């Protein structure tokens, strides 16, 4: 026991709440084959960013956006070259089932949105990348202005999901991963074509003051392995085209 203890390291991972469930699955798989310990802390990307810039000791940071890892990199808080895109978010439109056929066309969707008189939940485009994507989708349909008064904005994509999950409204743009992890009854989903919005790239970095470099390397290797990629994909994320190589050391 002593040997394994001296051998293993504890890896502190900060993860944006929307990716936490997926990351935990990966962690489970990783720990089965590794002596390293993982400690996963989740919060909103903005909060984690604040914590990191104010001295929180994390080894890896899985953000829900591209911006915060970039900023950290600029500030020189990351291991040079460690930033990479680990997942691409997809969004779906959720609506009450029975309104449209099983494979509706875009025109049907647009008509339905025009006819909709209730609220529509999205993540706050000013705050959340998923919200921005939803906004771009609605702009593409030229409905963004018309729907203004009907928009309910969650501070993140999870809150947008909670709005519709609570039954308070029956139209929302949420992340694909959410309806995979936790489907909602009586709702039909329509995957929004990735072409209708800028890609939602979620990036990760390794932090400069990370002490558990062995473990970080091992974990990132597992994440980028076929098994890891499989988990990410099955939870509804895409794998970005050119994943940056895990580490440079």
């Amino acid at each position: 026991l002593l040997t394994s203890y001296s051998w293993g390291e504890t890896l502190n991972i900060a993860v944006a709440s929307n990716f936490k469930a997926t990351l935990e699955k990966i962690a489970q798989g990783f720990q089965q084959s590794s002596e390293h310990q993982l400690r996963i802390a989740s919060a909103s990307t903005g909060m984690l960013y604040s914590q990191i810039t104010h001295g929180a000791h994390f080894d890896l940071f899985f953000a829900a956006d591209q911006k915060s890892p970039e900023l950290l990199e600029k500030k020189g808080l990351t291991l040079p070259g460690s930033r990479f895109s680990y997942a691409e978010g997809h969004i779906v439109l959720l609506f009450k089932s029975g309104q449209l056929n099983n494979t509706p066309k875009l025109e049907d969707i647009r008509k339905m949105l025009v006819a909709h008189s209730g609220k529509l939940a999205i993540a706050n485009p000013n705050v959340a990348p998923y919200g921005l994507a939803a906004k771009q989708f609605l702009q593409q349909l030229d409905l963004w202005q018309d729907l203004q008064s009907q928009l309910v904005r969650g501070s993140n994509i999870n809150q947008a999901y909670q709005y519709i999950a609570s039954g308070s409204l029956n139209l929302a743009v949420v992340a694909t991963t959410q309806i995979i992890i936790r489907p909602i009854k009586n709702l039909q989903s329509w995957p929004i074509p990735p072409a209708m919005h800028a890609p939602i790239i979620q990036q990760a970095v390794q932090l400069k003051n990370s002490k558990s470099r062995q473990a970080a390397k091992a974990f990132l290797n597992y994440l980028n392995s076929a098994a890891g990629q499989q988990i990410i994909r099955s939870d509804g994320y895409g794998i970005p085209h050119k994943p940056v190589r895990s580490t440079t050391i």
Partner: protein
Amino acid sequence: MSESDITALWLTLKLATVTSVILLLISTPLAWWLANTRHRVKPLLEAIVSLPLILPPTVLGFYLLIAFTPAGAIGSTWQTLIGSQLAFSFSALVIGSVIYSLPFVVQPIQSAFEQLPSSLLEAAATLGSSPLDRFFSVILPLSQRSFITAFSLGFAHTIGEFGVVLMIGGNIPGETQVLSIALYDHVETLQYGQAHQLAAGLLAFSLILLMFLYSTNRSAKQRPQLRWK
């Protein structure tokens, strides 16, 4: 401050004012009953009043949201009576804030009522003063200080609260986007400069308001002070 911040400021003031006034109206009879009852159920009720504090605001907000949906207990009644949806409306914010801040308003008033000398109420009654008259002519002036405390705590807590409000309001500009959400957004999007400005403004404004409230209050009783050494 941006224009949307100003809209949010007005909305916040409106929410805090309406909420505090409603809180006073609800809490006064409730506190009176709690202060005077000897019913066995009293500790239970006192505990229930404090319960909203126990849940994290967003979680409380989530449950309130479920109750406020047209299918929920409160939401369906509301829809029948008022005809519009409760969730994501200003009314929902008010209800949520009232529930969340209730303990801070009930408690000071209740303890003022409990410490009210019944001898003065008896004197008023023998002078022909009816219960309602007594309330306004004796109870209220003697509990003035605690009402001010209750109002300020309720007001301040409503301004700062954001979890509940965010959840049940849905951050709709001009309707449910209050200042605390705007401030939160600034922090979330790493716009620290704007956040600092807004926070400083909010604090300064609140400080002045609270100071005004507290100084309308009678100064410390002109009672003889014992020397402490």
